[in-house]
């Protein structure tokens, strides 16, 4: 518990009855010890939290002007853009903020992959993170449907049709999702309801994520455990200020998109009202779904594609067991290091394939990239961890004295 001394009598009065200040101090203040060697890749966690808050705040105000009805949805969005004071600003913030939120979260996930943040004792922390990511995807998908443009409508149609791949009950489930025989007004209404409520579910899981984080504290670039107070520094002011510096850069990037290229990450077809009788020539999801979309299309079977796409995320849950390495941080893994970057490139290739029409060479590239994605997790990760000889790992964060790899391995497993 914090031994904080409040000078202000009003704060002291509150603290005595509701110890909220010491709670904050313990959770992200000067009484929360963090490894002293966190690098800038560790900024992306708090950045994701801020992005979530930004989405919720802009979303609540947008919901005050939006009308979830097939006849009015598109017009109400245009009304936000033209008539509502600062409506264009709020909508562009919300749309571009969503895309950057995914960018931040993906960097956060790859950071966890690189430094072995999913390994003992942070397995639940990692799972909760994956749950957040899946909830984000559901939320973003349903949010994209709300403007009721051509891309909205056909994204909703294609994604909900994935469920028809389920044997026997597929059609029933899909019609249940739609509330009709096609994507229509009931679908739009329920998507709006869920798009509004799911972010608060995400907030709930974020709290669990932080709770699990605080149990064993942050992992760090060396991937070794905190040995004592000499290895840590208080979260505040050191990481609060470091996070603020990162936040400034994030806001600059976001503002550059919002003010100077607000539709860059969007698609022109979504400025055409939904037309259930005509599909656009090329339908592509938002960029943050492209790798998954490529995996879906890589399998030449309807059910197979759906299973592969689900598996591409599910496999992440299994990482704590798949990874047989004795050390956490890829920094000390001379072989796996290359495979990590291959995986990054592979996911980028999948993203590019997802944006291309499924013809010619792209079909083959998509299949190979999909294959490699699963080979990485199912074959490379366990085997490399098994035969690889890690580099010598420092004794402690405070004293980067090298010890033998064997001793470090014992350390990492403890």
């Amino acid at each position: 518990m914090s031994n904080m001394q409040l000078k202000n009598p009003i704060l002291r009065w509150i603290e005595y009855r509701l110890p909220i200040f010491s709670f904050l101090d313990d959770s992200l203040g000067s009484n929360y010890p963090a490894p002293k060697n966190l690098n800038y890749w560790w900024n992306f966690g708090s950045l994701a939290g801020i992005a979530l808050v930004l989405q919720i705040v802009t979303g609540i105000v947008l919901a005050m002007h939006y009308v979830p009805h097939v006849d009015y949805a598109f017009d109400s969005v245009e009304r936000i853009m033209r008539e509502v004071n600062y409506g264009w600003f709020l909508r562009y913030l919300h749309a571009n903020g969503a895309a950057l939120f995914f960018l931040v979260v993906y960097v956060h996930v790859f950071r966890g992959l690189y430094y072995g943040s999913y390994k003992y004792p942070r397995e639940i922390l990692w799972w909760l993170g994956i749950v957040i990511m899946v909830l984000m995807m559901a939320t973003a998908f349903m949010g994209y449907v709300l403007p009721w443009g051509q891309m909205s409508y056909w994204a909703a149609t294609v994604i909900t049709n994935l469920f028809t791949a389920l044997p026997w009950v597929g059609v029933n489930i899909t019609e249940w999702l739609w509330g009709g025989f096609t994507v229509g007004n009931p679908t739009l209404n329920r998507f709006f309801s869920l798009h509004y409520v799911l972010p608060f579910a995400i907030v709930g899981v974020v709290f669990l994520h932080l709770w699990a984080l605080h149990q064993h504290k942050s992992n760090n670039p060396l991937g070794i455990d905190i040995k004592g107070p000499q290895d840590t520094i208080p979260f505040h002011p050191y990481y609060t200020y470091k996070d603020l510096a990162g936040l400034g850069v994030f806001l600059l990037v976001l503002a550059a998109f919002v003010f100077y290229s607000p539709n860059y990450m969007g698609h022109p077809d979504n400025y055409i009202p939904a037309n259930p009788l005509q599909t656009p020539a090329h339908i592509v999801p938002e960029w943050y779904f492209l790798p998954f979309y490529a995996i879906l299309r890589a399998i030449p079977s309807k059910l197979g594609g759906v299973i592969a796409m689900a598996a591409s995320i599910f496999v992440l849950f299994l990482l704590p067991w798949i990874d047989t390495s004795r050390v956490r941080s890829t920094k000390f893994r001379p072989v796996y290091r290359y495979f990590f970057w291959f995986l990054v490139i592979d996911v980028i290739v999948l993203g590019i394939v997802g944006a291309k029409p499924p013809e010619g060479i792209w079909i083959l590239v998509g299949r190979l990239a999909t294959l490699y994605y699963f080979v990485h997790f199912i074959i490379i990760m366990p085997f490399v961890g098994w035969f690889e000889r890690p580099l010598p790992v420092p004794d402690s964060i405070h004293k980067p004295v090298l010890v033998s790899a064997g001793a470090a391995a014992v350390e990492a497993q403890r």
Partner: protein
Amino acid sequence: MTSAEHGHGGEMPRRDFLMVATGTVAVVGAAAAVWPLVDSMNPASDTLALASTEVDLAPIAEGQSITVQWRGKPVFVRYRTADEIKQARDIDATTLPDPKRDEERAQNPKWLVLVGVCTHLGCIPLGQRSAEPRGDFGGWFCPCHGSHYDTSGRIRKGPAPENLQVPAYTFLNDTKIRIG
């Protein structure tokens, strides 16, 4: 973002110029960022544009009232009888709770145009139809909390603080007005 100002703990940075400047700029930015959220809840430009309604007076008989909608609110238009005009003008306006002379409220004594919203808490007063109670002063009566308005729409008795509001209107010709 907030905890920069707390001066506790051993390793806190001292409040020097850089920290104060950073905190100030951040707070100013946060405050400015809140404005678009607040302003977006103000009436939008299309709402503001729907500001005028035209009313044809020709079909209204003497002693009769009609209700039209303007900016979503009811507007009472009454063709007053000579007796009603006399009642409205004979009284010494300075003795009223909200002292206004009838001459200030009706451009043409025959026609009284009022926003039909009780100035107490926003109910719609009765008295537009002949069967409805018109209160003790022959004008309108608000059933919610018992406010009585006279034949000029002035508050005479009850909790309402002000007279019924007169909207901005102009006579386009003898039988047509534009409200707003």
